[in-house]
């Protein structure tokens, strides 16, 4: 795989605030990589530094092996899809898309071909002369993507591009974006705080916390083998049991099994702990059952699927167990 973007010892301070202490990463050609983390973790700052909209306090940024650290954004071969689209309100869809081509002095005929291409890709052919002000969020989103894609950038940077859309449309656009990326073989660097989005779309997920890279792995590994307690709790729900030293045991709620206190046969040889149900929450496909464990303040959450037969109720005493293979040991 060819290297596309490399960040070397990037640091960023705003005044006395250290946003990013020391960040290193290499991103390869054709990858769909997601920077994932809570707001304020520095993911957007990193993306803006790659675009050139922000300058690192120290460190170097390489784009296809060229040092671009001090290169102005308009000279970089990357394009960005902004969080709120940032479409030019005084231009129609076509002129918005044409903007980048005019700047790069692409010949007129080629402009037409390329504009037609992206309009087709983003299914915007009928919106050509529309003003962005007259379009819905999803349509504006497509224009923003078309406007970036038409420049054939080496890397497409996407800053929470689906954040403003409603749930259904977001799901649809996730698939469309993923297909677009696969079809064009482009490198996508995607920023989001939505863990589900990160898991479904990416080849590789980089979890960030307070400007620090917590874990950099495939969605599968991130979900099933989180390295730290932060990753384990940020991605999906998790139950933690403290171990000696600075380790903890993490067990996913769907791996937690419940049994009646007086009937432990289902647990087999696994160790059973006891507690009292404090809450049962209906969530559609699952019920979430919260159990306060005896002799501690820990509350464990277990998912119960509809086909499970016991109708659990509050204040019932239950046994809690899990299989050894579902235990994940994480750093605290």
């Amino acid at each position, binding site marked *: 795989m060819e290297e596309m973007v490399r960040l070397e010892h990037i640091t960023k301070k705003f005044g006395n605030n250290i946003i990013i202490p020391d960040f290193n990463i290499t991103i390869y050609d054709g990858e769909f990589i997601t920077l994932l983390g809570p707001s304020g973790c520095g993911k957007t700052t990193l993306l803006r530094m790659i675009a050139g909209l922000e300058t690192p306090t120290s460190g170097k940024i390489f784009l296809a092996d060229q040092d671009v650290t001090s290169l102005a*954004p*308009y000279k970089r071969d990357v*394009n960005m899809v902004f969080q709120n689209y*940032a479409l030019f309100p*005084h231009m*129609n869809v076509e002129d918005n898309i044409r903007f*980048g081509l005019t*700047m790069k002095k692409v010949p007129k005929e080629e402009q037409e071909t390329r504009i037609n291409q992206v309009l087709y890709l983003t299914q915007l052919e009928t919106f050509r002369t529309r*003003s962005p002000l007259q379009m819905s969020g999803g349509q504006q989103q497509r224009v923003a993507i078309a406007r970036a894609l038409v420049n054939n950038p080496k890397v497409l940077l996407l800053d929470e591009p689906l954040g403003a859309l409603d749930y259904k449309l977001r799901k649809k656009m996730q698939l469309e974006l993923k297909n677009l990326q696969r079809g064009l073989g482009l490198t996508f660097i995607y920023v989001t705080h939505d863990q589900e989005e990160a898991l479904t779309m990416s080849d590789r997920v980089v979890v960030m916390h307070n400007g620090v890279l917590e874990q950099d792995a495939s969605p599968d590994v991130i979900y099933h083998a989180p390295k730290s307690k932060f990753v384990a709790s940020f991605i999906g729900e998790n139950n933690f049991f403290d171990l000696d030293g600075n380790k903890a045991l993490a067990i996913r709620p769907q791996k937690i099994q419940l049994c009646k206190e007086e009937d432990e046969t289902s647990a087999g040889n696994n160790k059973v702990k006891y507690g009292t149900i404090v809450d049962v929450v209906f969530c559609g496909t699952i019920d979430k059952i919260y159990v306060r464990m005896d002799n501690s303040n820990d509350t464990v959450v277990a998912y119960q699927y509809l086909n499970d037969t016991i109708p659990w109720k509050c204040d019932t005493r239950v046994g809690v167990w899990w299989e050894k293979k579902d235990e994940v040991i994480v750093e605290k």
Partner: protein
Amino acid sequence: MKKGKLLVLPGMMWLAIFFALPMLIVVAVSFATRNSYGQVIFNFTLANYQRFFESLYLRIFITTIFTAIFTTVITFLMGYPLAYTIAFLPKKWQQPCLIMVMIPFWINFLIRSYAWVIILRSQGLINTFLMKAGLIVKPLALLYNDYAVMLGMIYALVPFMVLPIYVSIEQLDKRLLEAASDLGAPPMTAFRKITFPLTLPGIATGSILVFISSLGMFVVPDIMGGAKSALIGNIIQNQFLAARDWPFGSALSIVLGVLALILIMLYYKVLEGQKGGTNNEKELA
């Protein structure tokens, strides 16, 4: 709904009594004559409007319009960069800068005009300094000419240009500039293609405020222009006070008003054309 409509009543009455009625009176008087004591006599005549076409008044009228256009252009050239700079300052510096732009308004306009006289006259600040320094032998004629009038008007009207332009630049979504830069536009191009067209409404408001104000200006030419440079404002003021010819003064006011209206409409047409490339406005309308 009915009760809500009552709320506009005070405002409407105010407009009717203090705007529409006086306006009608001025129109009526402009078609009247006066007797030798200056009393207005209502017998319909067009003579006042005919008199406007005498070369003396036509010439003053044209001078006035050119002075107003020139003032507008200069205040724009000075005001836009100033407004732009203020709008891009850190937030905590913007307010003090705007207050500095507005502070002169707190002082009476007449006094400020006389202050210019003190600065510019033969024994004034500038001439005294230059003579003491041995750079000139006799005082420069800085006051009582068209340049002095222009200086006074620009001085007085710059804030009217700065404030609306500041507002439109301040409201501009700065991410659009980031997007432009990201798409390959160097700063100057981004300004030309994004900032400037999107701040045209502010420029229009500022220009019209300055243009209208300078059309009717009579204090500045009176104090700083001396006898030689009269603008149409001075003539109108004269008709109502010294000459006691209210009908002619009214006719001049009406002509000035109508012309200003036509020019403003033309100006908006041109601005629309400027934005034309995309036809957004037309489609939305």
